């Protein structure tokens, strides 16, 4: 019972996520929106991936540029497993396919981890980058395991389900993803509180000191890397279940970079930061890429803004408000926020307009697309829209600087008060 009382937010989150697809439910035709479900499944998979990445970056301070290797190899293992089950060679319940991916990730995490954890800091980043390149090139080259460029395809409809579900609909797959994502998230959260998880923090904070309390920091990192490989592999296994195909994309540097972007934008310091970041990145990727060629540019700019101005990530920014929330003075920030909103919006719109204008003059023109806002076609060769964009950008930036300064003062004053109040009792 105490377990329930203490951890109710988790269960609430689970319930909300289970109910969420019904917002997009087409009641007239009586079926779920396939797009929304696939998008949410994608978020679920990428969230596991990002959380497992944060086991390295946030928990152990290891900056990897090749985490997708573990994700992708897990996915390949899961795909082969499914094909073996279908061929009748082995028996495995459908629901446990992601576990096969996880074990694959665990295995490769163990083997590759031995290699990469010999190094620290920048050399670790480089060796993971090298491994990522190596594996993605190998994926294109070898037919047997990777299936070359075509990848490995599967048919996820199997007869071995424990629950008697055939996973023919996106809804069933979503439930599978959600279930595994929930279990994986709980396990990763618990892992943080184990001796290994804490020592991973310790080696992140002070590599050498960890040795002098009796631990081999390399071993700690190796084990942490292996476990991260397991969870990445679970994500890979789920990926296969959603898309029924696994190609070299899954091990590529782009995939690795996605995890890094998600974790950093969301915030490596808080457990749910990576999930938040995943939602932002996947929505930008899937949503904005429909509207704009330049989604990666937006993600890149957002990333840089976070690195420069908010290295704590979105979760960290939210967390900074906690002292004000506790002292009940959060609403005093409402006005400063409102005042900063118009210039921020202006800056944002100016930037977007400028990017889109550029994008449509070159790439869009080459693809025969036209730039239209609300049905109104905009001539990208006339100077007017450009002038508007640049003006909005410039004025917005200038105005925001002033408001940001005022905001800063107010914020500092409020925090000072909050600190005094916290210290007073």
């Amino acid at each position: 019972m105490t377990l329930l009382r203490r951890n109710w937010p988790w269960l609430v989150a689970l319930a909300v996520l289970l109910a969420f697809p019904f917002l997009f439910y087409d009641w007239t035709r009586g079926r779920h929106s396939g797009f929304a479900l696939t998008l949410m499944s994608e978020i679920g998979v990428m969230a596991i991936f990002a959380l497992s990445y944060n086991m390295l970056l946030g928990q152990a301070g290891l900056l990897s540029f090749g985490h997708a290797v573990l994700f992708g190899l897990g996915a390949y293992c899961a795909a082969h497993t499914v094909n073996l089950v279908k061929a009748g060679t082995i028996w495995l319940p459908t629901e446990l396919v992601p576990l096969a991916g996880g074990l694959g990730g665990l295995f490769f995490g163990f083997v590759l981890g031995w290699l990469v954890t010999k190094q620290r800091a920048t050399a670790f980043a480089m060796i993971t980058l090298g491994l990522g390149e190596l594996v993605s090139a190998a994926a294109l080259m070898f037919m047997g395991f990777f299936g070359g460029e075509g990848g490995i395809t599967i048919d996820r409809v199997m007869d071995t389900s424990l629950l008697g579900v055939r996973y023919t609909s996106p809804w069933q797959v979503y439930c599978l993803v959600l279930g595994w994502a929930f279990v994986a998230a709980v396990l990763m959260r618990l892992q943080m509180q184990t001796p290994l998880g804490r020592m991973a923090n310790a080696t992140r904070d002070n590599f050498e000191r960890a040795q002098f309390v009796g631990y081999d920091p390399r071993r700690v990192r190796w084990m942490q890397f292996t476990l991260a490989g397991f969870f990445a592999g679970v994500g890979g296994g789920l990926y296969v279940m959603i898309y029924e195909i696994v190609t070299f994309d899954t091990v590529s540097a782009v995939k690795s970079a996605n995890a890094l972007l998600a974790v950093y934008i969301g915030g490596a310091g808080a457990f749910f930061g990576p999930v938040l970041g995943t939602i932002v990145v996947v929505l930008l990727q899937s949503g904005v890429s429909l509207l704009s060629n330049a989604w990666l540019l937006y993600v890149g700019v957002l990333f840089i803004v976070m690195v420069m101005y908010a290295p704590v990530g979105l979760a960290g920014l939210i967390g900074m408000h906690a002292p004000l929330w506790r002292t009940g003075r959060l609403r005093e920030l409402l006005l400063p926020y409102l005042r900063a909103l118009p210039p921020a919006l202006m800056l944002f719109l100016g930037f977007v307009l400028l990017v889109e204008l550029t994008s449509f003059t070159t790439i869009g023109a080459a693809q025969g697309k036209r730039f239209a806002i609300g049905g109104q076609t905009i001539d990208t060769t006339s100077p007017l829209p450009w002038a508007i964009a640049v003006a909005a950008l410039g004025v917005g930036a200038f105005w925001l600087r002033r408001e940001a300064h005022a905001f800063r003062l107010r914020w500092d004053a409020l925090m000072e008060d909050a600190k005094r109040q916290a210290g007073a009792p």
Partner: protein
Amino acid sequence: MTVPAIELSDVRKNFGATEIIRGVDLGIARGERHAIIGPNGAGKTTLFNLISGRFPISSGSITVNGKSTAGLAPQEINRLGLSRSFQITSIFPRMTVFENIRCGLLWSRGYRYSFWHLLGGQKALNAEADRLLDRLNLGDRRNVQAGLLSYAEQRALEIGITIAGGADIILLDEPTAGMSHSETDAAVELIRGVSEGKTLIMVEHDMSVVFGLADRITVLVYGEVIASDTPAAIRGNAAVQEAYLGTIAA
């Protein structure tokens, strides 16, 4: 005869062409509080680094609790029952004070690399960490990030992490460096308390701390031991006075 806690014989260390430690022989008996003093650059901290395995020795041999430390990694020497602190505060700055202490406890309590024990449920372990925090006078700072502590608090935490594992040989590298008088007094009391029944070896510049705490004193000058004796004898030793104490008194 009992095995000495630490025994160094003809230990040498050179960095490139420079010999920093030049043939040190030193035996430290179990239960002794031993201070190593000497002018700057004498190689005191280097000696600590050699004993604790931070650097390999160039020649000679070191035994800890009767076992040779040749080829052992720092963590393996730690597991022989030797623990050290650092001259420049070395803690886990982004973890809480409590977590810092608990990290110091984990290995000796047999948790090793476990990823199946939930630390929240380890009542005995947590109680022990809390008891130690109270002894360090850090009880009310329990949930503060270690990096945010004051300097003296961080030094206390440093000692706490060092002794947490229950090692019977404790090496403290300038535990009171940079402290005010009152802070130093508190630190001396703390060190006296926590080293009860253990072997303590410390490098220290503050002579009042040295003569107040140590049973024996070793004087290291330019990588060589010029005297190793009781405080009273050291005080009266002409060579020491000339090489070291004299310059301080003057």
